[in-house]
């Protein structure tokens, strides 16, 4: 098998890798905000329950969560295993990443000095207005580097989807490596991930610069 054929067949799997990546971001970024707000709730029970859920999601391997979401319903209730693996894969990824994003959001929100809330109150802003117009724009700027960190990790974590037989790019690489007894597919996979992340890095850098309008 020529190097070119190898690259082409692995690039086909890249589509499925991208599917996990984008869908996970679309679902986990907003979900993370909901979780963060629950975590900061004044109601102690809600706050502590959320805290517990976050610690479970961060404290157990994503691989295990993938298995639990995909095969758990089958083993526990005899419900069939999904034919389209993208669904359980995205559910597991989105929930897991939402937990991390929630903590990043919380860090950002809590870093805004209380004085700003007081000032907004004096100026007649409602609580929602204060949050959306004053706090949130500052939070977004502050958390960008941490969010980029998570997004970069997500690119690499997509390879975990093979645990539940979802064939993304790395799976195809492994398959070729096997049938050809060659190490080359892993090199190709490495380059693919690196280029993918270089693009993510560049994009996130652009967004960060855009937001940096006060300097």
């Amino acid at each position, binding site marked *: 098998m020529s190097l070119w054929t190898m690259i082409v067949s692995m690039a086909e799997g890249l589509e499925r890798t991208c599917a996990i990546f984008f869908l996970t971001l679309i679902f986990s970024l907003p979900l993370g905000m909901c979780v963060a707000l629950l975590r900061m709730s004044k109601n102690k029970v809600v706050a502590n329950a959320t805290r517990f859920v976050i610690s479970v999601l961060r404290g157990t391997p994503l691989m295990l969560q993938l298995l639990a979401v995909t*095969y758990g319903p*089958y083993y526990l209730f005899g419900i*069939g*295993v*999904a*034919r389209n*693996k993208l669904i359980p894969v995205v559910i597991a990824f989105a929930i897991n990443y939402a937990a991390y994003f929630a903590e990043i959001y919380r860090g950002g929100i809590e870093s805004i000095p209380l004085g700003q809330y007081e000032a907004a109150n004096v100026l007649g802003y409602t609580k929602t207005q204060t949050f959306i117009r004053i706090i949130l724009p500052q939070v977004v700027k502050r958390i960008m580097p941490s969010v980029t960190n998570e997004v970069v990790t997500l690119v690499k974590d997509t390879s975990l989807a*093979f*645990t539940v*037989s979802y*064939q993304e790019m790395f*799976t195809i690489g*492994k*398959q070729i*490596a*096997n*049938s*050809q*007894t060659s*190490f080359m597919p892993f090199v190709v996979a490495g380059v693919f991930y690196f280029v993918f992340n270089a693009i993510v890095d560049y994009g996130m850098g652009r967004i960060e610069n855009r937001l940096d309008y006060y300097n």
Partner: protein
Amino acid sequence: MKKRLTALVLAFAMIFTMTVLTACGGNQGDQADQGDQSEGRTFVMGIDPEYPPFSYLGDNGEYTGFDVDVARAVCDKLGWQLEIFELNWDNRYIQLDNNECDCVWSGMTILESTKEEGYVLSAPYFDNSQVLMVKADSGIASSADLAGKDVGVQLGTSGDILLGEDLAELAGTFNSVVRSDSFLKCFTELDGGAVDAVLVDAPVAASYAAEHDGFVILDEKLGGEQYGICFRSGDQELCDEVEGAIQELVADGTYKQIAEKEEYGEIINSLIFLQQ
């Protein structure tokens, strides 16, 4: 002051843990590296830990299976220590080359490409064929019924390779080929309805169907092949030693005794050394 002390203690605890961990990690590597042929050497056999009835985790929590039992008997005969290394099956060649184990011995199919790469292979010891396993109520009776269906296979196994080569035409009629990282996962997918059939080595299918209800193995045999033991290139001597010991086991009947174990199913009928 107190904080500093705590930090210091924690730092020491971390360094200590790391030292211990590295020391343990180091030992494992060394053992596989010992290439000396002296008595009492440690023989590290690389297995697919989820490949019944050749190598799998037994009810007592220790690895068992036909290949493991034979290897154990070989080591007893030669006075070696047997150590079992769980391979990541689709990385088996890399792990073998890295001295993580001395051989791959786990129902491994002899492929032309393996020989061409220079690996030393033992004489074949098992005649294998690929079969299709389906659910009893699926209504699938032959490979022709699989048009438009989803078929599961373990990545990197001979079934997977076969679908890319000799059976490519058949694979073209499927809706998709679903590759998993173990046969047990393939069977879960089959039972859970995520795939319609699993292409699997005959003995693996037989042993699974014997223990679980509701599965049927189709009579059709897809692709014949043979199992052998794979050693690193240059380990011809080690291969000869192991093969010699196996022949002794065949001669004194131990080999047959192992093959006759009930939990290994019908593999006795396909063992090449017992046909002669």
